[in-house]
């Protein structure tokens, strides 16, 4: 029996990615990374800034996401996000801009711990992207 399932990544403007031959997806959920295989129990969670890795038979794709919601049901993984890009064609300027704007946000005093954590994390992830 095959161990493949479907993934749909949609952003508000369009359907970003739709595949039916993936066997593992790793998503940066807010409480830690989750690896999803076929027949995972239904789950709803939301994302923190990080990298979604999609493993299909032929290739491995990575996407950077900022936030979003994931739902897994009936062997279909839906990712709803408003900010996503493929790591392969990452725009260097955009990445460095995002880093600096996040850092500017961090330097403000009036942010709560959760936000600080998310921003710190975002900077970390973005930096790791820009190094590669």
């Amino acid at each position, binding site marked *: 029996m095959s161990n493949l399932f479907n993934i749909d990544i949609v952003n*508000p403007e*369009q359907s970003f990615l739709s595949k039916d031959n993936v066997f593992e997806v790793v998503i940066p959920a807010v409480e830690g990374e989750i690896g999803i295989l076929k027949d995972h129990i239904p789950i709803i969670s939301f994302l923190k800034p990080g990298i979604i890795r999609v493993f299909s038979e032929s290739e491995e794709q990575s996407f950077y996401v900022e936030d979003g919601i994931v*739902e897994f049901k009936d062997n279909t993984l839906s990712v709803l996000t408003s900010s996503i890009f493929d790591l392969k064609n990452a725009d260097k300027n955009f990445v460095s801009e995002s880093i600096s704007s996040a850092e500017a946000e961090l330097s403000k005093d009036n942010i709560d711990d959760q936000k600080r954590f998310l921003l710190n994390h975002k900077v970390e992830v973005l930096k790791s992207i820009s190094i590669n």
Partner: protein
Amino acid sequence: MPSLDDLRKRITSVKSTQKITKAMKMVAAAKLRKAQENAEKGRPYSEKMNNVILNLSKSITDKENAPKLLVGTGEEKVHLCIVLTADRGLCGGFNTNIIKKAKSYFEKIISENKTLKIITVGSKGYDQLKRQYKSYIVENISFKESKNINYFDADKVGKIIIEKFEKNEFDVCAIFYNKFKNVITQIPQEQQIVPLNEDKDDKDDSGNDNDYEFEPDEDEILSNLLPKNISTQIFKAMLENSASEQGSRMTAMDNATRNAGELVDRLTIEYNRSRQAAITKELIEIISGAESL
């Protein structure tokens, strides 16, 4: 009776107007296709979003502590209305229809002695509403500069709404926009987004009794999700609106072109007739002149 020269000028002027309306129709048709495509592409997102929220709200048992954006503040005193219109005119009844729908809602609110607040998105709506409802308009947003409709703009509106909600500035929020049915028909819509209307979830109860695993818990997901949903709804409305606007403009301009054609025909007949009359008159004059000799 206008002179021949006047008629000739009139015909040329109508003809050039016809050229303009024809060109506008073509442009609207091209834009319509794109807008329609965009609206279709955007649909999965809002549908999935709705699904997730539906599943979530079902699993919430403790209604009292549920996020206020979902269940409301418990009061219905202050109504916030978001009126989404186009930035440009010459699109038939497009803007007027939304305004009409909104106005009837406003009147209802006012007659019930509730407080009304209006946010207009798009400059045409503001122009039409400011005469009568100036004092109620709290904000006037326009995205004239952005060429395409993007989520970023919708998110801005969404953030304004959330901000106002958190400051307890309103209890109920409704948006007004035109739903795109087809090129000829656009239906003005009134949609309540805060609190979320729950009457929809009777429909697909079947097979939806999945026990989801939530990470973190439902409340936290919901409170994260609901603000996003508002932006999504606004975005959806904007997409529908833009498709409707182009469709409406296309039909309006098509009608205008046809009317101009009819007018040209009529004027041409009139022109020919008066030219003929002038010739006949001259002939009579010549003949009677010759006879008298």
